[in-house]
C-alpha cells in the first residue's frame, strides 16, 4: 500500500489531524495484517516533528521491530528524512 503524503497533507506536512487519520485508518490496520506500507513523501518539502510523531510514533510504540520492517519512506527530502529519523530514534529510547 502506498500513501501519498502530498495528496493528504500538502507540500508542507503540519496537519496533525491528517496524520492521525492516516495512522488510524491506514498504518495501524496494515501493520496488524503484516502488510508493507510505503509513505511517499514526493514533493513534500518539509514536515513538523509533531506531524511525523502523530503519523508513526504509535505504530513504533506498539509494534517495535515490525513497524520498522513494514514502514517504508519514499522520496524524502533531507528535512523530512531528518525529522523521521528523530522520531524513530526517540521512540526507541522511550
Amino acid at each position, binding site marked *: 500500500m502506498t500513501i501519498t503524503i502530498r495528496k493528504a497533507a500538502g507540500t508542507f506536512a503540519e496537519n496533525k489531524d491528517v496524520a492521525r487519520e492516516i495512522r488510524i485508518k491506514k498504518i495501524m490496520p496494515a501493520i496488524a495484517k503484516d502488510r508493507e506500507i510505503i509513505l511517499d513523501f514526493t514533493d513534500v518539502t518539509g514536515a513538523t516533528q509533531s506531524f511525523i*510523531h502523530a503519523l508513526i510514533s504509535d505504530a513504533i510504540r506498539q509494534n517495535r521491530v515490525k513497524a520498522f520492517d513494514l514502514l517504508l519512506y519514499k522520496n524524502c527530502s533531507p528535512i523530512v528524512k531528518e525529522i523521521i*529519523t528523530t522520531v524513530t530514534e526517540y521512540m526507541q529510547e*522511550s
Partner: protein
Amino acid sequence: MKLFLSNADYLRNFEAFLRSFDPAKPSELSIATHKKWINVHPVVLSIVAALAHTVHPSKVTISDVTATSGHYLARMGLFESLGKKSPFKISEHESAGRFIPLTQIRTQKEQTNFITDMIPLLHMNPQQADAIKYMVGELVRNVLEHSRSKYGAFVAAQYYAKTNIVRLGICDTGIGIRQSINQSWPAKTHLKAIKLALTPGITGTTTREGGTEANAGAGLFFIKSMAMVARDYLVIYSGSGLYKLTKRKRTKGLPHLRINPNQDKHSETDKAPIFPGTVVGIDISLEKTNEFTALLAVIREAYTRAVKERRKQHYQQPRFI
C-alpha cells in the same frame, strides 16, 4: 487592562514593554501609544489583539495615534482587530510589504491555509520558508491543542530584508502553560511550568516517556533549539512567568544544545504582570536557517539524549551487599 506601545518594543526590551502592562480590570482594555514614534515587535500586536478579543468592543479604547509610524499599526491590521476605524488610509496601490498582518487562527484548516499563504506575503524564497513554516506549524498547533482558548491563536510576522530576520509573534488567551502542564507534571509556579514545557519529552497530556500517540513534548524544545543555534531572541510569557532566551556568544559551528533550560543563556522572572494565556515571540535569523537540515540533526541528537537520560533515572538499580 492597560498597555503602552512604545518606540522600542523589541524582544530585547520585552521586560520594558511588560512594565507598561497592567492586567487589572480585565473587562476593559486601554491602549496608549508613543506620541512621536511607534516601533513594536509583531508579538506585541498579537498580545493586543488577543486581549482585545476577551473584552467587549465598547470597552476597548486606543488613544489618538499621533506618531507618523502609526500607519504601520493600520497595515498590520491592529485597528481592524480592535473593531475600531483606522485613522490611517492605506492606498490600494501601496506595494505589499514583507509582513503578515494580525491573523486569528481557530482551526487546523485555518492554520494550514495560513502557512500556505504566509510565505509569498513575506516575499521569501522556498529555502528560507522551511524554518518559518516549521515554527508556525508547531507554535500555532500548540495553541489549538493545549490552550483551550475559544479565540484561538493571534499571529503576526514581519520580515526585515536588510538583516534577513523574521520577527514572529503568537498569542492566546487560554489556560496558560502552568494549567496545561499541571495536568501531568507538577509545576508550582508559572516560570517552572514554562521550563518544564521547554524540557524535551515533557507534555501536559501524559507522564509517559515519549509522550502520547499525538504529543511528544518536543515542540517548544525544537523551537528553543532553533533560536539557540541562530543566536536569536525567544520569549515565552505565561501567567506571571517570563523566560527569555538571550543572545549567546558567537561560536564556530553549531552549538552543543542543552536539555535543561536553566543552563541556556537567558533571563527570567516569575513576577511579571499576570498574563491570561500564553505568548511566544521569536526572532529568526534566516542566514542560519539555511542549514536547516544540519540544525535538525543537532536537535535530534540533543532530544534523543534527553529522553535516554530521563529513562535512565527510572532504571532499577542492583542491590549490592
